[in-house]
């Protein structure tokens, strides 16, 4: 019997949602992957249609592996079919049955890569920039030689936290920073902390591990379930029972908000609790602003910034709060990039067999960016930033870095 194919109640609901498909085909017209490759038959086909032929145990279809998991289909379906979630499950069944390539095991554990890279960061970074090393990587473990990889850092975020004095306040939030902040972009975490403190919050930063999202998107469900349940425990120590949990990584935030329960079928009191009070950082700031509590002592930022809303942020169904907040900054010329997906979809685009597809998916976005020639590209998701920079040469930042600058930061 398979542990995965049939599981928690939430999964039963996801599976039952296939009944709502009326074949309107809207999802097919929106899927960025189906638009660029014949290898992927499209969301209607691999989602509600194929699910009727799956009973667990043995997977009949391989093509579902080409779904990037961007979630656009689920968002556009007028009938509420949970297409991306169905695909995600099917993919994990496939991996469970046929085994997971070493490559997927590796990219699914950013902590592992980061931890391995950190003590020798300059060396690691130089190696990753070396085309010979990358070529070998492609041949041996299947990570495309031109795929974007993050730069490792010598000082982790938690190292900084250990030396950060912080402020005391009655208004407190928990900060869930995620792996990329920890291992690759500690400056993002530092700025989040600064912004929240500037607005009068005490920021609690518990020790935390990976949310399991990369494990999930690589089909390693049991490990992912374990990871997210552990994270939920780490994030809600007793004293902070009902504090907002702020996330600056869109995909990891979505994991806590929904995917852990709906895709992984994970469940625990802590997870439910965390799930209900997780906010995207800009979602949180927008609420502050709506209550008239956001400080708007902005300095002008005389830059042209092109903003791309990443899929996983859009899948939180919260609109584009970053745009709303950045619009308050004087002097800033903000260009909204109205394209769906950059192609990377977490770790999808770094895989040898998917790199070209991902680049084709992102093409319209890259073309727009190059045509616009902005000073900076802003995007809430780290992997999307890496992809955009690698593909266009543009400098990309988290939108809160712009906000930080408007507050007078450097």
């Amino acid at each position: 019997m398979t542990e995965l194919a049939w599981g928690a109640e939430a999964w039963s609901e996801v599976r039952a949602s296939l009944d709502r498909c009326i074949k309107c085909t809207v999802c097919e017209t929106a899927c960025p992957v189906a638009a660029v490759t014949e290898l992927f038959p499209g969301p209607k086909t691999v989602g509600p249609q194929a699910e009727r032929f799956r009973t667990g145990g043995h997977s009949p279809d391989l093509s579902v592996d080409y779904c990037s998991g961007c979630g656009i289909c689920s968002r556009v379906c007028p009938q509420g079919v949970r297409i991306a979630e169905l695909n995600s499950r099917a993919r994990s069944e496939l991996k469970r049955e046929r085994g997971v390539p070493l490559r997927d095991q590796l990219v699914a554990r950013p902590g592992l890569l980061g931890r391995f890279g950190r003590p020798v960061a300059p060396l690691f970074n130089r190696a990753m920039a070396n085309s010979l090393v990358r070529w070998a990587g492609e041949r041996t473990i299947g990570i495309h030689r031109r795929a974007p990889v993050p730069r490792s850092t010598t000082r982790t975020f938690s190292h900084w936290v250990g030396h950060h004095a912080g402020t005391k306040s009655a208004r407190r939030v928990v900060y869930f920073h995620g792996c990329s902040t920890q291992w690759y972009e500690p400056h993002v975490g530092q700025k989040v902390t600064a912004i929240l403190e500037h607005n009068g919050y005490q920021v609690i930063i518990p020790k935390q591990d990976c949310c399991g999202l990369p494990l999930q998107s690589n089909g390693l469900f049991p490990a992912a379930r374990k990871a997210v349940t552990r994270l939920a425990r780490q994030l809600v120590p007793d004293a902070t029972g009902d504090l907002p949990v702020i996330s600056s990584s869109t995909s990891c935030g979505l994991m806590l908000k929904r995917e852990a329960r709906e895709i992984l079928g994970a469940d625990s009191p802590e997870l439910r609790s965390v799930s209900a009070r997780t906010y995207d950082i800009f979602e949180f700031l927008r609420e502050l602003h709506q209550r008239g509590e956001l400080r708007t002592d902005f300095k002008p930022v005389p830059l042209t910034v092109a903003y791309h809303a990443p899929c996983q942020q859009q899948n939180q169904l919260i609109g584009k709060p970053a745009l709303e907040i950045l619009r308050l900054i004087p002097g800033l010329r903000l260009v909204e990039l109205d394209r769906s997906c950059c192609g990377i979809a977490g770790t999808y685009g770094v895989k040898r067999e998917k790199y070209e597809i991902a680049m084709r998916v992102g093409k319209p976005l890259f073309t727009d960016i190059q045509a616009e020639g902005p000073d900076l590209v802003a995007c809430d998701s780290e992997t999307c930033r890496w992809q955009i920079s690698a593909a266009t040469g543009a400098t990309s930042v988290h939108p809160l870095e712009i906000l930080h600058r408007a507050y007078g930061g450097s």
Partner: protein
Amino acid sequence: MNTLDTDVLVIGGGSTGAGVAWDSALRGLHVTLVDRQDFATGTSGRFHGLLHSGGRYAVKDPGSARECAAENRILRQVAADCIEDTGGLFVSTPEDDLEYADRFLAAARAAGMEVEEVPVGTALRDEPRLNPKIRRAFRVQDGSIDSWKMVSALLRGAEAHAATVLPYHKVVEVLRHGDRVEGAVMEDQRTGQEVRVHAGCVVNAAGAWSGQVARLAGCEVGVRPGKGVMVAINHRLARAVLNRCHLPSDGDIIVPVRTVSVIGTTDHPVADPDDTECSPEEVHQMIEAGELLVPGFREARALRVWAGSRPLLPKTGGSAGAGDREVSRSHTVLDHGARDGLEGLVTIAGGKFTTLRLMAEDTVDVVVRKLGRGSECRTRTEVLPGSESRHFYWIGNRQQEAETDPPDDPLICECELVSQHDLDTVVARRPTWRLDDIRRALRVGMGPCQGGFCAFRVAGMLHQEGRYGRAEANSALREFVQERWKGVKVISWGAQARQTRLDRWIFEGLYDLEHLPE
């Protein structure tokens, strides 16, 4: 008028008639099999799809249970391609008597069934949608059996042994010479032409219609048609067949058949076996019954409703006033020579899909005796065409094949994954008259959209290939859509109602189906 000579004329191309044809052909007899419609359009195409383990009859009708258990084992050997090995569970729901469960277990063992009690927790882990309040569970060898595949394999097998098969040939007259039946006259329903068949022996395998056929020969067969209603749900709610462990009643089995789950059934005596109307009350009754086995059943998408007629033959002097379930499910071979003094006619009545092989064997034994010709029965071991590999059919087969279909072989029916190549193959293999014939052969139009996205494709392709003239294509399409509508009109709620509206937009808004030229 065409005239044919044959050893055995079999009237009725359901599972029974097809089984008789296969059995006779293997014994070296020349068979002619006729049906008033396409094959497997009678009860055999309208049944529940269960390859009985015997569990249903274990307590009430041990003879039937034993037959089912034995035949189940044989069919798995010779007809694997038509069977899906889903397994089955008998579960005691909160409404079922626990004491019955003990009787069930003992009776099932006595009937020679493979049965084991499984912990409730195990049953629930295997079947997460099963009612968590069940109190006992037994695993049995139920399976699901595809009627079209089975009947078609039997026909192909018989044809390979020189049988003649004539669909759309309705028997309108039985030829008698004194006290002897010598054959029958058929009317081709497509052309109106008559065909006369002279036969050494005539087998009446017309199921619920066998009373009508016997009457043409001037004798009576007391078959009592018993109508049963079923509802198909859009996807599989369980992997195994789910049975309530209690005395058989209405709506107590859910069978995973191909891509759907089918709940059934009821049993109401009807005067006319062609009466297959389903009332909203009957549908409601099924849906509510499903809720007991699978909580949330009500919210699942009902795809289609249909009914079939049981060919029940009361045992001589069958207990008056008793409900039809009192009647044994076992079959009876009526030798009209011995019974009515009318030689050359044998009626096979009663029975089940699961026991078709045994029914055929018993029937042809009598035929062989009468003809004084024909060898021993071989159907116990002879493997049917398509089942040579002895691999069971598996639900994922089509999905797996669709993955490797060449890109220039487009899907015609997306719900049931039928490609243009599949369609061409079937159309080349057998003459097609109605679109419904293709539906049965390939499941075109049987998925969630109920033909909305595929019916016009099929009609158009057949027209393009010159098999249909313009008017024929149009009327075939219209007829098909109306037939589909019959099955969904009583369940038009929720997602299926939306689907129906979208389909109507396509058919009426896009194709103006009502006004296509005749």
